[in-house]
């Protein structure tokens, strides 16, 4: 460990300051943590956080900080995004209505910014801890705890002491997307304006939440995957990443990190292909990851991962998972050769694809993952050509045809399917790929709160079928391929019980701005969209056939 060069007179950024009086911007998600130090002669974490992060947080970084070695070396310490303050980017923040909460954890799971957190304590512990809260704030903070059936009633029956459950919003990380409000089925969250009083109470409450200690693990069932985010060890992706409000990729990365950390703590790593994901997770000097992460180019992430895997195996780190992350541009198109080569190697590398069906980072150009008819910057809808004319490439089917490769296609809206896919990929001794549908609000043309709903609709309309192909499950494709999780798995389209009508790809297209030009003024779809509809049904039929359902 090298010595700190922190000599700032205003105290550490990881402690309360005049700018951050309740120390909301600090390390640790459920409880406070010290900086995550490294034993490298080329990176002084304390200096980086106290001098460089401070420069950016206080607004003089780009103008006044001299060029430094960490920038030249492309090094950013782990978790520096924890120190980033997003309090002022949104006019609204969620409010928790404790009486309505059931403790389902959907809001905590689906937040793309690690800005909504859960905690459970025994009632006895809770009473003790509440006595440490300043009297003037005790009632305000106490009201934010709920007695749910899941933790209180069941806890009382099982452990003799009910579990008190709290949801808290971290005001320094919330971007106001309202995804949490949308996924809440119990009216336990609503958006309110950020008045001075609201923000003061929110900042205080978040501080008390961290001071009160970790969850009591007796109330967290290891078998109930949705509860994994009650554990600090799963908070590998901190808030403070620079993704758009409501970004579907943010949620996917958080859930991937949580599931991997549940089994391996922070003893694993990531190789990322250039794209949106590398931009918002390494916008200098902010890094939301608490595990080693590296990015080289757009096209070579799987090759890079092969090299890292080989070295790790030489070092005896063969049990340490290595995720290779990229968008559809990196994995379907530019890095496809490298991806195929990695599959053929049989090496223990796990690939996670953030499939937004477009090059989101560079402004929305078509990729081979783009749907037929989609209006993108390289398939602009005009008089002679109405959007993309090719069919979508199906990377999952291509991956299935590689030798002994685990393949899954999933979404964050299908939480159990997602976790099952990721955990299955990690358990599999060999190459694996998990393709995840991720809503990109600006390129899909949907509201900030719509990531989950649109992902669910993509599955319901056969735009993006769920699948898991596990080579261990049998000696035929039929035995290995599961389409479980899709609605009406043996039929053509899902039939909405509320309308008794089939829900088709055209219905999905109708709900997103990227297909808006395919509908005339009376709302009738274009011929291209009718073809896209046929394409999606043919793809679904192929999957049914492979799975022995047709």
């Amino acid at each position, binding site marked *: 460990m090298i010595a700190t060069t922190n000599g700032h007179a205003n105290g550490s950024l990881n402690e309360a300051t005049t700018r951050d009086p309740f120390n909301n911007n600090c390390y640790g998600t459920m409880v406070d943590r010290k900086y995550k130090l490294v034993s490298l002669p080329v990176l002084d974490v304390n200096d980086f956080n106290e001098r460089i992060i401070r420069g950016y947080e206080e607004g003089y970084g780009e103008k006044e900080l001299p060029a430094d070695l960490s920038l030249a070396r492309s090094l950013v310490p782990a978790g520096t995004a924890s120190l980033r303050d997003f309090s002022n980017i949104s006019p*609204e923040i969620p409010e928790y209505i404790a009486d309505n909460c059931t403790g389902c954890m959907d809001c905590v799971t689906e937040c793309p910014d690690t800005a909504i957190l859960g905690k459970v304590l025994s009632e006895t512990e809770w009473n003790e801890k509440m006595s440490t809260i300043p009297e003037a704030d005790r009632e305000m903070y106490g009201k934010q705890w709920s007695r749910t059936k899941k933790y209180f009633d069941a806890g009382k029956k099982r452990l003799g002491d009910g579990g008190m459950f709290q949801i808290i919003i971290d005001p320094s990380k919330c971007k106001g997307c*309202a995804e949490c*409000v*949308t996924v809440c*089925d*119990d*009216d336990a969250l*609503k*958006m309110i304006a950020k008045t001075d009083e609201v923000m003061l109470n929110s900042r205080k409450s978040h501080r008390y939440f961290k001071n009160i200690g970790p969850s009591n693990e007796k109330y967290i*069932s290891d*078998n*109930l*995957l*949705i509860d994994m985010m009650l554990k600090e060890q799963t908070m590998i992706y901190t808030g403070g990443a620079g993704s758009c409000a409501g970004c579907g990729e943010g949620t996917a990365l958080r859930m991937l990190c949580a599931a991997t950390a549940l089994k391996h703590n922070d003893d694993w790593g990531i190789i990322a292909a250039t794209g949106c994901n590398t931009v918002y997770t390494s916008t200098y000097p902010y890094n939301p990851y608490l595990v080693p992460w590296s990015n080289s180019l757009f096209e070579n992430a799987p090759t890079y991962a092969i090299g890292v895997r080989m070295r790790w195996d030489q070092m005896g780190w063969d049990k340490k998972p290595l995720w290779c992350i990229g968008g559809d541009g990196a994995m379907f198109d530019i890095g496809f050769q490298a991806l195929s080569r990695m599959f053929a190697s049989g090496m223990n590398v796990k690939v996670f694809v953030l499939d937004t069906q477009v090059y989101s980072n560079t*402004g*929305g150009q078509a990729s081979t993952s783009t749907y037929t008819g989609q*209006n993108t*910057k*390289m398939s*602009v809808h*005009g008089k002679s050509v109405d959007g993309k004319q090719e069919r979508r490439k199906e990377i999952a089917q291509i991956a299935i045809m590689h030798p002994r490769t685990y393949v899954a296609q999933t979404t964050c809206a299908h*939480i*159990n399917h997602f*976790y*099952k896919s990721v*955990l299955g990929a990690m358990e599999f001794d060999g190459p694996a790929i998990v393709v995840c549908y991720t809503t990109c*609000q*600006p*390129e*899909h*043309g*949907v*509201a*900030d*709160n*719509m990531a989950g*709903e*649109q992902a669910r609709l993509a599955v319901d309309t056969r735009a993006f079928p769920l699948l898991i192909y596990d080579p261990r499950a049998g000696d035929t494709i039929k035995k290995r391929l599961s389409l479980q999780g899709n*609605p009406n798995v043996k039929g053509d389209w*899902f039939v*909405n*019980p*509320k*309308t*008794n*009508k089939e829900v088709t790809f*055209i*219905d999905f297209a*109708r*709900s*997103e*701005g*990227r297909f*808006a030009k395919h509908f005339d003024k*009376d*709302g*009738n779809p274009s011929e291209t969209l009718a073809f896209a509809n046929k394409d999606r049904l043919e793809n679904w039929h192929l999957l049914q056939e492979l799975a022995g359902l047709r």
Partner: protein
Amino acid sequence: MIYRSFSRSALWTTIAAREAKRTYMSPAKATFEFSAGALAGALEFLKRTRWELRSLRRAHVYADCLRIFDINGDYFEVRGIGFADSDVVPLLQAVNAAFDPASVHEPPVSTPKEFDLGRRYTWAHDRVM
């Protein structure tokens, strides 16, 4: 491992129950009494009262009323117009609802008829490269 699961119809029932509870529990933020020839007034009402709601999420159309919900479950209401009326189409268009013109006027299996409202322009949609 226990994977929390529920049937899709149960999910729809949950959503319907929740929204029924919302509509029962809170009065409309604003209302408009629709009558024949009042389309322009109704459109003006939607435009004028829009600021009272947050990001719009869903439209419910009954036989005799239209409700526009935001993400918090708050809503405003146009009374005296239902799914069978031709004038419901421009009202749904005014809030950017996603609906099929071929079936918008058909009576639903269960009321209300629901339409999503989350569609937006894509980034730089008007830019030609």
